[in-house]
């Protein structure tokens, strides 16, 4: 409690700080507690950065993710440097151009960085056209290099696609799948769990048994069947929506139980009972006393559920059941890297795995911080 008092925002005097604490609502107390959890705060920053960059992948990527560069196939990453570049007054970011040669002994194609030249990165350059928010036509990109030069920060794939651009475009799909699938299952879970917890009795028994049956079925075979049911001729967008639906159909059970359990325990709380005894209507008890008190828990649970969805999508696509090229997702990218040769010779193809790990970790830490902060009695 003392620690919370000292973290009050810009106190003019100790008394005012105390008063601000006494009159702080649960939401602001939750924010304070969350801010004390440094790892969780950093996780939130990372997530925001990831989402901002991936949702605006058209802007942040230098190349089209499906554009083939036949001059630069299976090229290792061009390392980003910072320093003086000829012809410019101030130091700036630059890359060394890559040159393709034949290995004198093995006769394999290989690349080496031409350290004698420095290609400066230019920011806010005009490039291929895209549409901002699907509305405004623009050609502006975050960075680029002059025509004829290359800038593959994470190397290129088997067909010469820019891995950095593919990572961002894949992130857009994978991160969005997590969100939309969780919101769909949230909708299912909260309504079914709410009905189950509030009305109880037979409805509760039926819903809980259905959830239990769904939980006992191994997920992979179900995914296999459902994914096999998607017609081949469907567009990638349709496949994408069906995928999120499949994930949501399997994922709502856990949330349903959480919501039900929380409702059952909150309904028995003394303050809910006190409201009923004061003459409050059922509607008021639900909307004024129950929902605000479990909303924070639900948000925390949701945050913890998103990485599961992202992992599901990734593993499905990796198994070739989910999204297929030309749609790019982290799972699709990992599928391309799933042979031993790639691991040995093109380790940069595994960067999407790092992105998945980073995202899942960040969601878990953020969710844990939120969960701890959501408990009104922890000080």
């Amino acid at each position, binding site marked *: 409690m003392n620690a919370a008092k000292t973290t009050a925002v810009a106190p003019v005097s100790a008394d005012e700080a105390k008063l601000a604490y006494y*009159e702080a609502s*649960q939401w602001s107390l939750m924010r304070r507690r969350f801010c004390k959890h440094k790892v969780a705060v950093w996780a939130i920053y990372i997530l925001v950065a990831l989402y901002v960059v991936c949702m605006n992948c058209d802007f942040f990527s230098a190349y089209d993710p499906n554009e083939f560069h036949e001059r630069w196939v299976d090229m290792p990453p061009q390392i980003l440097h910072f320093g003086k570049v000829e012809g410019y007054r101030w130091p700036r970011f630059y890359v060394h151009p890559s040159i393709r040669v034949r290995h004198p002994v093995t006769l394999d194609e290989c690349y080496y960085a031409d350290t004698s030249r420095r290609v400066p990165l230019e920011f806010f350059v005009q490039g291929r056209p895209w549409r901002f928010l699907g509305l405004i036509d623009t050609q502006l990109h975050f960075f680029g290099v002059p025509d004829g030069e290359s800038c593959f920060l994470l190397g290129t794939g088997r067909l010469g696609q820019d891995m950095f651009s593919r990572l961002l475009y894949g992130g857009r799909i994978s991160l969005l799948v997590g969100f939309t699938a969780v919101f769909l299952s949230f909708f299912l879970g909260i309504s079914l769990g709410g009905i189950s917890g509030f009305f109880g009795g037979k409805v509760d028994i039926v819903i809980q048994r259905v959830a239990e049956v769904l939980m006992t079925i191994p997920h992979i075979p179900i995914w296999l069947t459902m994914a096999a049911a998607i017609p081949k001729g469907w567009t990638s967008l349709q496949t994408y929506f069906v995928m999120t639906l499949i994930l949501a159909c399997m994922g709502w059970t856990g949330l349903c139980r959480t919501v039900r359990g929380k409702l059952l325990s909150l309904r028995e709380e*003394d*303050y809910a*009972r*006190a409201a009923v*005894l004061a*003459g409050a209507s059922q509607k008021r008890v639900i909307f004024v006393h129950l929902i605000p008190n479990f909303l924070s828990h639900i948000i925390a649970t949701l945050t913890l559920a998103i990485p599961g969805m992202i992992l599901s999508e990734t593993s499905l696509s990796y198994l070739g059941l989910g999204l297929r090229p030309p749609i790019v997702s982290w799972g699709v990218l990992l599928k391309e890297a799933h042979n031993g040769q790639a691991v040995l010779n093109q380790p940069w193809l595994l960067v999407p795995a790092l992105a998945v790990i980073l995202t899942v970790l960040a969601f878990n830490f953020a969710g844990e911080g939120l969960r701890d902060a959501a408990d009104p*009695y922890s000080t």
Partner: protein
Amino acid sequence: MKPPLLSVKNLRVWFPKDVSFFGKPLTWVKAVDDVCFDLHEGETLGLVGESGSGKSTTGLAILRSHRPRDGSVLFCPDGQRVHDLSKMEHRELQPLRRHMQMIFQDPFASLNPRMTVLQLVSEPLKVNHVGNAEQRKQRVRELIVEAGLKAEFLNRYPHAFSGGQRQRIVIARALALQPKLIVCDEPVSALDVSVQAQILNLMMSLKEKYGLSYVFVAHDLEVVRHIADRVAVMYAGRLVEDGTKAQVFGNPLHPYTRALLASSPKPNPSHRAKRGILHGEVPDPSNLPSGCVFHPRCPEARPECSHIVPAQTRIDGRNVRCLLYESGRTLTDPAGADKAAS
């Protein structure tokens, strides 16, 4: 004659314990069984007993937080019309709720952590459509001052208060609608001893001022001695004895009451009572002993006690439920028989 404010008759609160596959209860937890008592206006009834004796359940069943299985709860807030709360539907109860309020045991759980003092105390007024926002605010200000808090606490949240202060908020909230009856479920047992006395004195002065009647559930006999006019002792869901404070504390009749009084700690060590009278624990309410529920632990148990359920016997304006006092019943006294044989 004016009907009593509250008259509880043969109240039974049973909860299903094991349920068959089709939802039919197989065994019951008999939390409250055949409880009768009256409470007159301006009186305080102390309901005492060990934990698990059903005293809190009785309190909650009076306010219809639990639906009784049997019996009646006759409530007469205006001295004329008698309402049987036990049979009413939720909607019919609504207009009567303003005459009966509750003070809970744990002031940390009974205040919604997301509401300010103003919102908390004005909630009963708001849901019963009393006054407009400004009038309610004024009333809340008066109420919390009356409960011993400062008027500037209005916008604070419960987390800013200590247990005693929170219980004052709960009291202010219970008073908001000027009820006739307040059921207090161990209102001071979660508080420090010094704070307990303050809260009890506050409750007593409010009772004088507003003519309140309390059903005061407690396990602490000293607290009950301090606040109650009448005392009812419960054991395993049954009311074993009730009478005025002087009767029950001065001359307890039921063996359980005697044991309970003897077991309460005495402040003066030279008056230390004989200890260790009672052995064993309160029986499992889903599997009660036959006959008198107290017979397995009773120091004065007779063979009949294990199969005859004692009826409520009235002696000098008090009730006791024990075969020892049932008139017209001759008891075999094992001790006496032993003496006669020797």
